[in-house]
């Protein structure tokens, strides 16, 4: 089981409560598709992903970004059993979506950068450490049911 300090618990609740998920989700996914273009392989039916501007303005990307962030919220509310909470989602990503788990890390990095830009100076090294630990646990849980 993952051990969370009081600081880490409080930080995660605080960061996500302040987060504008309608902005952060879409921006993080868009950045992922732009910075790591091979991730576009999973979004063949999303229409125009031809350049950065197209990706940023693509409504399907935006909608999916919100979906992904909604999924993250489940982990925020169940920090003591992220593994269990994500078991089904892990099976989905492995069996149905066939997503290479390495992509979770790429999206996680983009999410960190978008949150950093949103929070500015409030995203201190200590907050970043808590946030990245949380995200790493989520990424690990998502990859757990792959075989």
């Amino acid at each position, binding site marked *: 089981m993952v051990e969370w300090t009081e600081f880490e618990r409080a930080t995660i609740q605080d960061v996500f409560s302040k987060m504008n998920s309608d902005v952060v989700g879409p921006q993080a996914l*868009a*950045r992922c598709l*732009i*910075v790591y273009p091979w991730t576009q392989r999973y979004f063949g039916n999303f229409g125009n992903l031809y350049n*950065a501007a197209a*990706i*940023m303005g693509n409504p399907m990307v935006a909608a999916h970004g919100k979906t992904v962030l909604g999924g993250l919220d489940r982990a925020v509310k169940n920090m003591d059993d992220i593994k269990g909470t994500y078991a089904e989602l892990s099976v989905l990503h492995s069996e149905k979506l066939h997503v290479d788990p390495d992509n979770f890390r790429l999206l996680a*990095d983009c999410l*960190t*950068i*978008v949150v*950093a*830009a*949103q*929070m*500015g*100076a409030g*995203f201190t*090294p*200590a907050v*970043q*450490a808590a946030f*990245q630990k949380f995200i790493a646990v989520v990424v690990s849980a998502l990859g757990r049911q792959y075989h």
Partner: protein
Amino acid sequence: MSLTAKDKAAVTALWAKVSGKADEIGHDALNRMLAVYPQTKTYFSHWKDLSPGSAPVKKHGKTVMGGVAEAVSKIDDLTSGLLNLSELHAFQLRVDPANFKILSHNILVVLAILFPTEFTPEAHVAMDKFLSALSLALAEKYR
């Protein structure tokens, strides 16, 4: 994934905007690296103080960004341009190259915090590619 002309232009343009704060960027990136990836502290056992704001961390941030600045000026041939730095890292410092990725990530985080408007997705991809190419050039002489 080599740097295109567009990448080089984007990196040079972004660097022009951010280089004024190079020391601050280096300092903050190192602080974050040490805090978020504690295993990196193993390379600095010779410093008494590894806390954010400590003198050796601040000084070293400056040194590191000096290297980045040099890389920007030699962006057309990073491998030969960074030969000396590569030898330093390979034979003396012997930093595991996996750590270059870690520091690069933290540089990007700091850029996002300090320059949220300028650090557009296009600037982000160019900078990510540049730091990867820089890391590769730095690892050139390792074996």
